[in-house]
């Protein structure tokens, strides 16, 4: 008999699944060529309900379902982050879908299912369950990436993501199998117990394999090659989703796998991957003219900064990583909401040229995008600044001087390409006729949420930071 409290511990996932199914059931009722906005509204309500469920769940910390799921500050923190990402993505999809003439209602259901998978990834403490959750989120995202059916690059994006993604999850699964072989269990905390008493060479290989799988999901070098193409082809709001949600969830899993298990031998893996991601991401971004590709490379670079926090380890490093994931989500999802809005029918307007003179054509959008970009650079009053500061501070506390220097030099390089976007928006004359539609309500709400979050994290990060620290402590317990 499973106690009721166990269901509370997966309540957000349950709520969201129900709303996802609801969206699929309502879909056929809507005439084929009508707006699918009602589904979007269902999705928004679902996400809000799941947020409420998360808040409720926060009073019931503990394990559930035979120690497969654990609700603690760590999982609740990531639940909130992921749900807010989903909220912004759904809100910014309302008008995007209509502009793109995407009429399949499954879109919203898939977003919700993907969200369920990600949330489960952060609360699962059992490697097989983690794998299942990972697959739930991945498969939904593969489909979402191909939603611009008429565009060849979208199909390419979907296929590439699918092929490489399955390959990567296979690596993860191999790793899980080896861990099981070495320790006789797949429960993260049991593994920790076993590893504290016995040593096994296989575990090193297992950790490396799992790192490969998750490294793919977070787009860290050298497992990043898919990122630019996939991001370029996928629908812009979906890219906003992919680059933040699965990333946050995969980082959460990585935190569990590396720290909660007390697994050995990952330090140099993480170190090298961090240094490579930052460098490759930033240098790649320097030459991009397509904003989506630019943000794809930037996303690789940010994965690198996050891994710096991993390398720093201990409570400070983990909480820095958690905080970074949240700030990155806020600014990146906001930036992509704007990119989606500006892209126009068939995503024609996604190059830097199309952004020229935006400051004049649409001062509000330009100002908002500027703030998100400033945050991505890491300049004060934004979350991005504080997150980066926190990460490097943690790194120096762990005496990672080399990595810190690589990191700060990289963030100086990075300033250039973000600045380029700002330059095009404000300092170049308009050369294209790329129209800017008025800001619809949904997008307005989406931008407001991410903007407020970005500034809030930069000016009053205290509460979130406290929670991040507590999450880190919970994780290590």
């Amino acid at each position, binding site marked *: 008999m499973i106690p009721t409290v166990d269901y509370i511990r997966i309540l957000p996932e349950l709520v969201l699944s129900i709303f996802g199914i609801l969206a699929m059931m309502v879909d056929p009722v809507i005439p084929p060529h009508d707006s699918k906005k009602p589904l979007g509204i269902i999705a928004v309500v679902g996400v809000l309900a799941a947020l409420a469920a998360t808040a409720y769940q926060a009073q019931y910390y503990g394990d559930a379902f035979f120690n497969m799921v654990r609700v603690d500050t760590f999982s609740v923190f990531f639940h909130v982050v992921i749900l807010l990402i989903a909220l912004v993505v759904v809100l910014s999809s309302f008008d995007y879908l209509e502009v793109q003439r995407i009429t399949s209602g499954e879109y919203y259901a898939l977003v919700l299912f993907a969200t369920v998978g990600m949330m489960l990834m952060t609360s699962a403490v059992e490697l097989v369950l983690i794998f299942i959750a990972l697959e739930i989120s991945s498969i939904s995202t593969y489909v979402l990436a191909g939603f611009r059916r008429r565009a060849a690059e979208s199909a390419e994006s979907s296929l590439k993501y699918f092929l490489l993604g399955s390959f990567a999850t296979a690596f993860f699964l191999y790793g899980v199998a080896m861990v099981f072989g070495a320790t006789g269990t797949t429960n993260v905390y049991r593994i920790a117990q076993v590893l504290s008493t016995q040593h096994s060479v296989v575990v090193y290989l297992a950790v490396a394999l799992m790192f490969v799988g998750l490294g793919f999901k977070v787009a860290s070098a050298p497992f990043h090659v898919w990122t630019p193409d996939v991001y370029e082809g996928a629908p812009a709001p979906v890219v906003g989703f992919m680059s933040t949600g699965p990333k946050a969830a995969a980082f959460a899993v990585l935190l569990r796998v590396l720290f909660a298990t007390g697994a050995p031998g990952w330090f140099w893996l993480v170190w090298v991957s961090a240094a490579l991601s930052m460098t490759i991401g930033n240098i790649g971004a320097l030459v991009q003219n397509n904003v989506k590709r630019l943000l794809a490379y930037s996303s690789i670079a940010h994965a690198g900064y996050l891994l710096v926090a991993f390398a720093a380890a201990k409570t400070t490093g983990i909480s820095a990583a958690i905080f970074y994931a949240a700030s990155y989500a806020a600014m990146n999802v906001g930036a992509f909401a704007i990119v989606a809005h500006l892209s126009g029918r068939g995503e024609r307007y996604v190059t830097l040229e199309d952004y020229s003179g935006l400051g004049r054509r649409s001062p509000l959008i330009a100002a908002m995008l500027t703030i998100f970009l400033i945050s991505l650079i890491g300049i004060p009053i934004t979350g991005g600044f504080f997150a980066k500061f926190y990460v490097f501070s943690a790194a120096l506390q762990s005496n990672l001087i080399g990595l810190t220097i690589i990191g700060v030099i990289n963030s100086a390089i990075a*300033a250039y390409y973000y600045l380029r976007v700002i330059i095009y928006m404000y*300092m170049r004359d308009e050369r294209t006729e790329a129209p800017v539609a008025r800001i619809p309500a949904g997008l307005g709400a989406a931008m407001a949420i991410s903007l407020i979050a970005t500034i809030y994290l930069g000016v009053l990060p205290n509460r979130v930071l406290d929670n991040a620290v507590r999450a880190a402590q919970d994780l290590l317990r």
Partner: protein
Amino acid sequence: MNAIDHNIITIVTFLPLLGALLLVFFPRRDRDIRWFALGISLITLLASLHLPWYFDRGQTGFQFEQNVPWISHPVIHYHLGIDGISMWLVVLTTFLTPLCVLISWKSIHDRVKEFFILMLVLETAMIGVFVALDLFLFYFFWEATLIPMALIIGIYGHGRRIYAAVKFFLYTMIASVFMLAAILWLYAHTNSFDFVTIRDAIQNSQVAGFDTAAKWLFLGFFVAFAVKVPLWPLHTWLPDAHVEAPTAGSVLLAGVLLKMGTYGLLRFNVGLFPDEARSNAPWIIVLALISIISGALVAMVQPNAKKLIAYTSVSHLGFVVLGIFSFTQIGVDGAVYQMLNHGVSTGALFMLLGMIYDRRHTYDISEYGGLATPMPVYATFFAFIMLSSVGLPMLNGFVGEFLILSGAFQARQVFGIVAATGVIWSACYLLWLYQRMFYGQITHPVNKTLADMDARERVSLWPLAVAALVMGVAPNLWLHSIDPSVAYALTQFNNGLRAAAPAASHITHALMQVIGR
């Protein structure tokens, strides 16, 4: 301490930001926006006058302090405070901003709202740099000045504005990440971002690993500040930024942003790392001397008047660095005073050039000549300000340069002698500039009918001219409060030296040599 004293710095710092936020919601009526920006900046000026008015000269250390925990983990405090050094820089900032609003009244006619928002945000960030006593907070404000300034140059500037804006941005950004690394190292080893705490910890040798790291930390801070000052050979962004920036941008850039560099050198490089400052002083002074001379020589051959003035900044700021690294009471006094002078004189020169640019849309000296005839008032103002910049006795520039040179002579005669030639050069290039622009025949017929300064332009220049005069005849009004703070800083500096010196006799010997006693 009453509530106003307690909060005054916060008020002064964030009033402009509040104004900027209100401006965001303003309708796009340019006239109202200008008046509003002027009003806000004037209120800020008035509020900032509270500081010198109630400043306690007898008290060393920081005043009007406000220290509340901001972020608990890592430990970051919202710690503001001023001493006699930073106080006047704050007032300089609030004094120049309303004048910048006035000078941009007509020359900025496109995207007016954004311009004044940027300017007010910039003002908050600039004041913040001078009042922050927490290293995190300092870096926070330091970086926050970047974007508004880059945008002001890039959007409202002239021909090669984008190039100039990017260059400005990247130079500063790249240099300041080294400072960030140094700040983070200090935090990792002292568990504090607080300036006073860190300084005391270093003085009492409580920082593990400091002896080996100090050299790098010093350099980390130094690079960030040297780019900002700018010190030769890191000065190449400055001429571009100045030439392309709109007038108000140049005024704030020269008047305030460069002082952030020299202020940082004095507060952090000298304040936190006395030993390193001492041992690195010789080559830094050499760089300062090169700045003084090369800045002056390059200025002399510029065909572009604005570029000429830009290079004079390199030269004048070289004096400030020289004064700081003389480590003498009189030299540092002079350096601080010269920071203020330079803000007033060079700010005024840029404003004057902006006025003529509004009329003729060129900075080429060869386009002018004989301007004294059609524009007598303008010519008079120009002469007055130019003389203050040259360092004519009774005007402000003289006091600063005199003090710095005395300090340099005390430190080492040869420094003083070389630097003193800089005074001669500055007379050369400025007087020559004046001669070419204002005397002789009018070579271009358009110049015959140029209108003289109107009321707004006069209003924007009078305060600067008066300041130049008062600062020249009554420097004690300022030095009164600067002097004790400098004395205190130097005492700390010398304490730090003794405490950290491993081989006292050797260091003392070296000291004697450097000081020349």
